């Protein structure tokens, strides 16, 4: 199922794409590109991101860029992270191995968690909200409302 990990012939592709993407990120280097590729408009341009983009748009967090949550805030960590994630996204999209279930991986969850804490530091100062592993264990709707009926989040692709 997971071509990226199990298909050995995928390896050269992966390296090429990684190199290409990292190259773009470094040579353009402009804060502009960096910011643009953080936004809902960019991420949502991919069809497979439509559900996330829609639910995000309807949420109280709508004004945030996707990567306010989905990339490390610290630039040194953000660059390689974006390159790696971007490569994976493009790789899956172009090679047609988009999984049925796009699931937040461990790394995504940790990155997001750090960002929740970063923004909401004031809320978590007086009382420890780290009673659970993730903020979203309580704030289950943030921001993609995963418990809503599918028809209100998603539809088949044309």
């Amino acid at each position, binding site marked *: 199922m997971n071509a990226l990990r199990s298909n050995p012939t995928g390896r050269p592709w992966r390296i090429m794409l990684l190199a290409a993407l990292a190259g773009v990120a470094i040579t353009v280097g402009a804060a502009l590109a960096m910011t643009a590729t953080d936004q809902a408009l960019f991420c*949502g341009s991919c069809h497979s991101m439509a559900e996330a983009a829609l639910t995000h748009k309807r949420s109280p967090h709508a004004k945030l860029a996707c990567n306010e949550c989905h990339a490390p805030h610290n630039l040194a960590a953000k660059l390689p992270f974006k390159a790696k994630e971007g490569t994976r996204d493009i790789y899956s999209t172009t090679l047609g191995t988009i999984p049925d279930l796009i699931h937040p991986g461990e790394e995504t969850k940790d990155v997001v968690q750090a960002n929740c804490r970063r923004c909401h530091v004031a809320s978590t100062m007086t009382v420890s909200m780290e009673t659970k592993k993730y903020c979203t264990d309580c704030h289950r709707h943030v921001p993609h409302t*995963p418990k809503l*009926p*599918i*028809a*209100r989040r*998603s539809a088949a692709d*044309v």
Partner: protein
Amino acid sequence: SEPSEPMTPTYKTKLSAEEMKNSAFKAEFPLQYETYLRNNESQIMTEYGGSVPYNKHDNVNPLPEGYKHAQPYLKNLWLGYPFSYEYRAARGHTYAVKDILHIDRLNNYSEKAGLPSTCWNCKTPKMMEWVKENGDAFWAKDFHEFRQKLDVDDHTIGCANCHEPQTMELRLYSEPLKDYLKSQNKEFKNLSRNEKRALVCGQCHVEYYFQDKEFGAAKKPVFPWANGFDPEDMFEYYKTHGNTTTKGFEGNFVDWVHPVSKTPMLKAQHPEYETWINGVHGSAGVTCADCHMSYTRLDGKKKMSTHHWTSPLKDPDLRACRQCHTDKTPDYLRQRVLFTQNKVWEQLMVAQDISVKAHEAIRMAAEYTGPKPADYDDLMIEARQMCRKGQFFWDLISAENSVGFHNPTKALNTLAQSQQYSQKAVDVAIRAAAFTTAKDLDGDIKKIVPPILKHSRELQMDPAHMATHKWFKYLPVTPKAPRVWDGQTRLVPPPAPAAAPAS
């Protein structure tokens, strides 16, 4: 681009508005069609569900004939009713026509099927054609009349049952569901997309009955929902929607009379929709399609609804569930389903046993010849009413295909009620027999009334078989008759046309 509200994609096909053949849809929708063909998978089991059509009463033999989680008393409880001849676990939609053509519930040893054409209702899109041609006269026609009028693959449950062929919009083909919506002043096309994603299944996965002629077109299928979807609501409904004249049951709808206890019975069938509707998921708006038609990417790119309707637990990854339960592992979710199913199964077994005991208690009271209490007749009516109710409540959960998962609390509460009503039937029957039968009814029910493992239309013609169980003596041995139908094949020549009646 800005994300848009989720909408089913729209289509403009080259198909005719009357298209019924499944294969006709293949060219335009190769991916949906490919998943549709996966309904042919008929091997994989889960703990309680899955797709092997084993005999649902046979907990003795291994798969594919029996299964560990079978209910041994089914043939006893449905004695005298076609379901006692054969009842198997459901499998994929692509088998619907094949399976109905071979099921022993229909009389394949006679020119008369014993059941009306209504049986076709939930097996084929051809229904639309047949109802249009025959009007309400269709329902009461003999089932056999239409045996050869369809193709087993091309006309089994398929695209046209749920989609308008030219636009692929969801639609209803089902007459009883249309009638119900009309009675609620609702129109399918004005309902939300989410409601439609459950109602298309609610065309078939529902409790139904065949209308008595006094109430409209004879044998027309009707959904007994006027009072609501709960067991008590449907039971109340049946009290006033039939033509029975039996004392104490006047005006009741009755599916058949149990030959052992002479109780006017109800049969419940697959009430998935009614069970789901106020369950944990149903009330949260999570629809059948969310779990049984989750999105998949067949070409690795495009998202589409899988058209392989089956147990979502057959997928090791439980992807259907984890669209919503993103924070849970497949193993965790599976365990939670089992946490409910194990308990429901346990209570189902108990309810079944007491239901059998109720029939036996009533039989003994009916045959009791000693001095009777003054209110004997009333007691017998009360005992039979409780027996009817207890068994109907049991059957609503037994016939429901999720072993309680679609609505855990309703399932368990209904089974507890079933046990109470059946126990009440036992108590009242013992009272009617002036307590003389208490002793014989005490003890292990499996010994008092053993489960019937084998029974069929053919076996009922065999006096030796009919001597193997004490309850069989309440059934007639039927005359030996050759098999007339094997699927779509006639095995004996058709009878000479009846001479035109002299006029």
